[in-house]
């Protein structure tokens, strides 16, 4: 690719895809429905009832 063409591509496409990704992330982060899982995730590392062991499904007796 020629230098001029690279510059054109970087300055046009580069601008728009970065803006699009930024908008996408903000929408994802503030989508009201996602709040529940975010709150759950934030609390998950603090749960004192969780033993320091991998999760083990209760086996059928």
């Amino acid at each position, binding site marked *: 690719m020629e230098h001029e063409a690279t510059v054109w591509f970087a300055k046009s496409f580069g601008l728009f895809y970065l803006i699009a*990704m930024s908008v996408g*992330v903000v929408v994802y982060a503030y989508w009201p429905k996602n709040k529940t899982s975010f*709150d759950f995730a934030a609390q998950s590392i*603090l749960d004192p009832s969780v033993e*320091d062991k*991998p999760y083990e499904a209760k086996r059928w007796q």
Partner: protein
Amino acid sequence: MIAQLTKSERQLALIILLVLTICGLAMAIAGRQDPLGVHGAIVMLAGIAGIFGVIYVYYEPEPDEARLALYYDDPTKLAIILAMIWAVIGMFIGDWVAWQLVFPNLTFDAGWSSFGRIRPAHTSAVIFGFGGNGLIGTSLYVLQRTSRARLPDQISPWFVLLGYNLFCLLAATGYLMGVTQSKEYAEPEWYADLLLEIVWVVYFVIYMRTLARRKEPHIYVANWYYMAFILVVAILHTVNNLAMPVSFGHAKSYSAFSGVQDAMTQWWYGHNAVAFFLTSGFLGMMYYYLPVRAGRPIYSYRMSIISFWGITFMYMWVGSHHLHYTALPQWVQTLGMTFSLMLLIPSWGSAGNALLTLNGAWYKVRDDATLRFMMVAAVFYGLTTFEGSFMAIRSVNSLSHYTDWTVGHVHAGALGWVAMITFGSIYASVPWLWKRERMYSPALVEWHFWLAVAGLFTYVFAMWNSGIIQGLMWRTYNSSGTLSYSFIETVIAMKPYYVARAVGGFFFFAGAVIGLYNIVMTIRTAGQPADERAADRPVAQPAGVPALQPGE
């Protein structure tokens, strides 16, 4: 630790070590008198030592199935010890380098101890030895806890940890023999780079396989930061180290790039090493250990997501700010500068998020030196990212570039942010990992903290002063339009600051030595009450009372 391996894992370990030994032998034969030959011998000895280690326990009984119901923490334990050993080595060399700038005779007239060789030994030992082992150890710890899943197997974490440390050893010994690619923070030559490449891919595969086994629906934000660290470092390492060796029997290689493309590739690598090695991974640490230690969820989980993607999008483009006023096209320089300024948003997002998490837990910060390490780290993360964005502005850069201001900036980040968050995380994890009630001596943690803070401030203020004076002296003209100061006059003006910097560095080094001692004593002092994980944690929220949440 090796006895924890199953029979088939012990066999696999032997095969890997045998291949390593043969590679070392081939390097030693092909390299002959070249430094490659010495490195071949080191690789071969490492392989043979490993084989003896495995054979020693080969006929021990296999571990029982009960281990599968627990997290696999042995690699994390070793990584933490190795991180502290590398910290002591790297900081000792760093302080030696600092004193060399005051007293040049401290090279003792030897080639291996000249500034140009031990300076990269210092940077690699602290960044890759200390920082890298800290990252590998804590990432495997955090990955398992946040996924509530055990690592998929027991051999690949050892391959990553030990292979990585072999890389660090080849790097450090290579510099002393004069082996270098002359690319900053990517000095090791092609064969060491190949080793790291394999190790790093396995590291990423461990991450993916464990996440695939996770029992939590959401991948906790710390894992995203750790994953970005692993993935991007793989990309950077691969591209920047594309090179052609002179021959397979020679350590020297030539880069695939030349001229300004080489410079741009190097600083694309160099600044993203700062971004993804020294920032992203340590943010992963911060987003796990700081909330857990403070006993409070992260202030805004949403902000942590925005900060994460902001950092991954924007950091990639800032490398060109290292090349202001060079042959690099002006618009590329401006692009780097602009993205550096925008980077302030995600950086302060994370720094603010960390400090706001501590709101309501400041009494814990006062009482708990471990949490205080993390608090100082967050403050210096905010300070350094502001300073970095500011220094990336072309006109500011014209004053700061090539001066000690850059050195001061780097150390504000490396000592104030990276080392502080690592020490905090290590002090938090050691009692959890070795099932102790607390560290051997909380007083020594306090000593470490205050020595580190004193050293940090002494160092950074000395370098800010010297850097700005240096920059101003270089650009002072007299009435006839010529430079007022000769270069040697600027060097003489720096000497008091170099003394102060070396003293500050010694404080920081002394703190790390105390830290290593304290950790070793914590491990060796048995008979402390065994710790249920929650016991070492700050008081949990009273049941029924919801944690105070910010108004989101």
